[in-house]
């Protein structure tokens, strides 16, 4: 085998390898999804964020419109202060509701935005007033058990 054929094969190998990297980056990874450079920041207070993480998606009608930028604990109100970056192409009214939801039963948690009817839109640095906390499974179960206990006791009294 002379030199030039080796060069050809090495060239093919390098092209293949870089092609595989590109395939991983473009087809497997999420390079293309939500790389909006133009974003604005909105804050919201929640009594309980459950398992929400930074970089969790923010969805409206199921479409990803932003990501959670920062989660902090507010020492004065004892609430969680969540900062969200939204794409500027997505504008929401001022009375939008932010809910912490779960995708599926065991899935990751995300913030769902439900648009209100206000004519004024949210601006950079605004706060979403209407929020709904994450559903904590333990609270739900204990509530259910208390209700059950109350139901079974009542017939005995009568």
């Amino acid at each position, binding site marked *: 085998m002379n*030199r030039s054929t*080796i*060069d050809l*094969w*090495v060239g*093919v*190998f*390098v092209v*293949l*390898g*870089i*092609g*595989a*990297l590109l*395939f*991983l*980056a473009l*087809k*497997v*990874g*999420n*390079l*293309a*999804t939500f790389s909006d450079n133009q974003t604005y920041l909105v804050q919201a207070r929640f009594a309980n964020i459950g398992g929400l*993480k*930074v*970089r969790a998606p923010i969805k409206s009608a199921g479409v990803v419109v932003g990501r959670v930028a920062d989660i902090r604990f507010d020492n004065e109100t004892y609430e969680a202060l969540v900062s969200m970056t939204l794409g500027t192409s997505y504008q929401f009214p001022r009375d939008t509701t932010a809910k912490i939801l779960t995708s599926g039963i*065991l899935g990751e948690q995300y913030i769902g935005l439900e648009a209100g009817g206000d004519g004024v839109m949210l601006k950079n640095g605004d706060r979403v007033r209407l929020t709904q906390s994450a559903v904590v499974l333990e609270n739900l179960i204990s509530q259910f058990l208390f209700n059950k206990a109350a139901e079974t006791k009542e017939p005995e009294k009568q």
Partner: protein
Amino acid sequence: MQQLEQLREHARGRLERLGNTVTSQVWRLGFASRFLFYLVMHSATALRRFRLTVAEIYFAGVLSLIIILVSGLFVGMVLALQGYDTLQRFGASESLGVLVALSLVRELGPVVAGLLFASRAGSAITAEIGLMKATEQISAMEMMAVDPIARVVAPRFWGGVISMPLLAALFSAMGIFGGYLVGVQLIGVDSGAFWSQMQAAVDLRNDILNGVIKSLVFGVAVTWISVFEGYDAVPTAEGVSRATTRTVVSSSLAILALDFVLTALMFTGGNNQ
């Protein structure tokens, strides 16, 4: 009394041997580090006369393509079969793409490609350099005032370091294709869910870039061990065969140990997000 003396003598002999082993291993490690430093400093020839390195990329990379591609395909296919079996119990068979892609890109791609690379190319590099030493080609070069590290070792080192990340990427890509073949074509997972869930879960920086960094580190470790073992081999037939065995054993151990360290640094239990 004499018995006690004998026992003490015996114990001291053992202790001395233990100390001797430790010292010689540390000595070897120091020599290996100095060797790597010297090698990197004298790489100018290998990079200026790039044809030397290209020939080694051909040897280490192109000739390893078949084993890497076929193994990647089968690993991906097995992952899809096994993953589907577990995921469908939880009704999450749509997440098959995520499972296949993340396991390949983060772990299996770099690690298995590294292990295959060590046994396919690393052992050959050691044997080649060791035999050159045994047949006194290396001494002959020194006699002719040609630096054997710059002329023989450096091109092989850089050839391996360049080849390894490309091979790992090819392994992962092929594995994902294998997972697609079994998961979507054979079992019938929805093709759209397979790809879209994969794209939603795999992160460019956290997953793919970290995988590439891993494979680069493994490439440096494996080729370093290979060229050093060859250069340090006892110049006899037995010495070369021992060095080749040591290359495969130490590179495999190095890959797995480094993998743990790198994983611990990169994925700290999801708390760094």
